[in-house]
């Protein structure tokens, strides 16, 4: 068991490297993830959270370096050397105990005070003159309603830049977690409860989000693509959504329209202006204007939509949309129609 001091030194150095390597990685890790939140707050809300996190991580890093530093100094300095007698049998030191009780407590106060301030800042938003969005989680997709504007859509919400949005978050079945990291923290969508969230987006663009509470089979496939539009873009989107009318299909997708309205689709899906007013599935009004479908799972292409309609289960496990056993031709026609709804 007793080894030459040489090899112990090597062990210690190795241990050090193991510890420091990941840290070094942390320093130079430039995130390439579209869903990252760290270092990428794009709203006032997200900025509050990031600011708080920055402060904590600063304190945590100091604590980490100091405490691990002392630990390793102790390990190095007091490793056993040959020919030593018994070390002095110290039992403790009350001053030290008081010191290392108080110092961490004080350090924590620097976290606690801004934390409490931020808690009250982030709860219960003032909703006057805000864009109101009702978020409803379903197994396994998101419904977005804009009650003041009379708009209903799914999976791809839009927000105007520089304007405060207040969101209420509910669930239609089980608990889901609503999270768009770039715009703000998450809140759970809980049956029997209505949660709140708010943000004022600061930058236009596309934001990834995802369900964060386990909601069974396709929990991993319950994603969100949010869009922050400039003022013109937002106005255009709102107007188009309001005036959308799916009952005047272009001639080349007429057949798809017929098929859609005569099949079971209408029992579950709504398309504004058409007889389709089902509430079970996502609202398909202006489906063609969405970049993705299946809750962020697939690019909105003709092939993808066709194969979705042909076999939803294969496209998304567990999916509540039944396979209606349409022919390839019919499915393709419907897909063409849906994609024409811009």
């Amino acid at each position, binding site marked *: 068991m007793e080894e030459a001091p040489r090899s112990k030194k090597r062990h210690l150095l190795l241990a050090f490297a193991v510890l420091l390597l990941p840290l070094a990685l942390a320093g130079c890790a430039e995130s390439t993830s579209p*869903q990252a939140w760290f270092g990428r707050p794009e709203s006032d809300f997200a900025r509050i959270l990031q600011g708080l996190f920055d402060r904590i991580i600063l304190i945590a890093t100091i604590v980490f370096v100091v405490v691990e530093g002392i630990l390793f100094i102790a390990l190095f300095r007091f490793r056993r050397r040959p020919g030593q007698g018994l070390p002095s049998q110290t039992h403790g030191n009350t001053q030290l105990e008081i010191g290392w009780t108080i110092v961490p407590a004080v350090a924590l106060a620097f976290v606690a005070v801004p934390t409490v301030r931020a808690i009250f800042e982030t709860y219960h938003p003032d909703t006057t003159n805000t864009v109101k969005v009702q978020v409803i989680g379903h197994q396994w997709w998101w419904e977005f309603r804009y009650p003041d504007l009379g708009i209903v859509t799914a999976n791809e919400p839009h927000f105007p830049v520089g304007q405060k949005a207040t969101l209420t978050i509910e669930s239609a079945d089980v608990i889901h977690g609503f999270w768009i990291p770039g715009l703000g923290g998450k809140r759970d969508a809980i049956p*029997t409860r209505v949660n709140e969230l708010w943000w004022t987006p600061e930058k236009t663009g596309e934001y990834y989000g995802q369900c*964060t509470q386990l909601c*069974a089979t396709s929990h991993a*496939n319950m994603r969100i693509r949010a869009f922050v539009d400039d003022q013109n873009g937002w106005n255009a989107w709102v107007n188009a959504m309001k005036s959308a009318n799916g009952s005047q299909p272009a001639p080349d997708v007429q057949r798809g329209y017929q098929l859609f309205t005569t099949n079971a689709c209408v029992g579950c899906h709504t398309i504004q202006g058409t007889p389709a007013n089902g509430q079970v599935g996502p609202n398909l009004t202006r489906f063609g204007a969405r970049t993705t479908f299946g809750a962020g799972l697939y690019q909105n292409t003709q092939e993808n939509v066709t194969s979705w309609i042909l076999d939803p289960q294969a496209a998304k496990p567990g999916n509540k949309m039944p396979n209606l056993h349409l022919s390839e031709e019919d499915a393709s026609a419907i897909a063409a129609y849906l994609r024409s709804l811009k």
Partner: protein
Amino acid sequence: MATISTAIPGAMPAREAVHVHHDYGWKSWLMTVDHKRIGIMYGVTAFGFFLVGGIEALLVRTQLAVPNNTVVDPDTFNALFTMHALTMIFLALMPLSVAFFNIAVPLMIGARDVAFPRLNALSYWIFVAGGVLLNLGWVSGGAPADGWFAYANLTSKEFSPGPGMDFYALGLQVLGLASMAGALNFIVTILNMRAPGMTLMRMPVFVWMTLVTSVLIVLAFPVITVALVLLTLDRVVGTGYFVPSMGGDPVLWQHLFWIFGHPEVYILILPAMGVISEVLPTFSRKPLFGYHFVVYSGVAIAFLAFGVWSHHMFATGLGPIADSGFSLATMLIAVPTGVKIFNWIGTLWGGQIRFTTPMLFAVAFISMFIIGGLSGVMHASPPADLQQNQTYFIVAHIHYVLFGGTILGLMAGIYYWFPKVTGRLLDEGLGKVHFWLTLIGFNLAFFPMHFLGLDGMPRRIYTYPADMGWNTYNLVSTIGAFTIAAATLVFLYNFFRSVRFGAVAGDDPWDAATLEWSIPSPPPEWNFDRIPTVFSARPLWDEKYGVEGGHGHGGGGGALVAAGHRGEHASAVGAPAAAATAVAEHAGEHPEHIHLPNPSYWPMVIAFGVFCLASGIIYALPISIVGLCIIFVGVNGWAFEPAG
């Protein structure tokens, strides 16, 4: 039990077992009420479950190694991580801790057994029954797949129609029974069976942490039991406690679960902290620094544990006052935890540190647990947690505290007490390979998870697209997981080899300070020929080195320890000559006069009854009735058999 009965006879010849005249056949294991053998059974079974939980983890990591992977389907994936967590927590780490309670506590306090030896056997067998029940879903209709905290209302019959959640609810109730029985037993044992002179403040810290953990178990488990009863009623009978359409509130489940769940995580860490508090002083050749403060901070952690549960629910939206209160209480826990860390470092400071394998694990515990603790403090700030909650940042925290903390700590314990239990030392060379592979694999597996969290990867997702920027970290993490697996194989090899061929340990291979090292390795069935009288917190040390080593607290006086067999085998690891030659012959009374409890098979019978009772609720009520009858017969047999 085949592995046990083959492993231990191999261990026995390590010392000329003069007094050992009882059999080690497989039947004797089924009927044993000896705390040491029950401890071995707990340890072996728990380690088996650790391998099961680890294989589940490896499957999880294999699925996540690359984007869009299809090794397992989504529902299997959900079952895998659910069972991984349940197995690790309830079937591996808790019982592994209990194994140490069993093996070490009576020896450390100078007792001949626990207060209720048959109850102890009952705990073990009920634990086995619960473990089997929980895992039965794999072969019988589907394992639990709603996550280890199983948030309602996903667990309702409507959304989880299979039997998985029934196995969850009933399995955990049965396991809770085992934990409760064990914890009550250890509370009584520790309070009431200490050797003369061993005041509370002379108890080894490990014994203290056992006491605190047991109190936590006794207070936390009834809460989850009630929650599980309500869930069972919802699912089996048709009440609506957690069913929104019937007026139920799913958030009540969250509260009940975490009122239990947070104390539970301290139930998992405090025993490991106790182990560390024994190992560090031994290999620093110094007393534990600030003994009183280490003890009090353990008590403080336990006390605070009941006031922080809602820090798991910051995204639930409880309101600003609630969030603030729970946040502050949570941060407060960092203070007593810090006190422990600093006192451990204080113990190292000025010592003569011997880097044996147990010591390496102990030191790694401190180092890694700090990382996990600090990420805990990051979650403790609710607004900041709104970004971290339910991401891999949390998964990183979980594993830095549970693996970097508990597993490393318990590993230190295994290397430390293995010689006491088997009479042989684990191989140091292989031990070091095990250690470094584990440490490297562990950091590879779990450090990248912090970055995954910052990059927005939610936990519990069975797949992810390729363009999320998560690919490298996930691959590294998977490699790390397999490195841990390799390390574990090294350990297994070392274990089976050393049981038979390891260096003979002698009574006190580490030159330690506490009572268990004053008796032979392995100890005779009655532990102490004569119950020692204790005058300080380091009785054996003081006996070996005189009082100048032991002054300070606990009242002076040389530590009088009844002489055991000592000195026949020179220490294999360089313990000082004092220990090896101190007392040549012992003055104990003849072992025949020591009264030992009789073996009993009733504990096993009752446990089987409990198993039938619980599984009948899932399968068919008549089975439950049979179970009740078996329990009744068992209790009767128990009550009227002479306890010895």
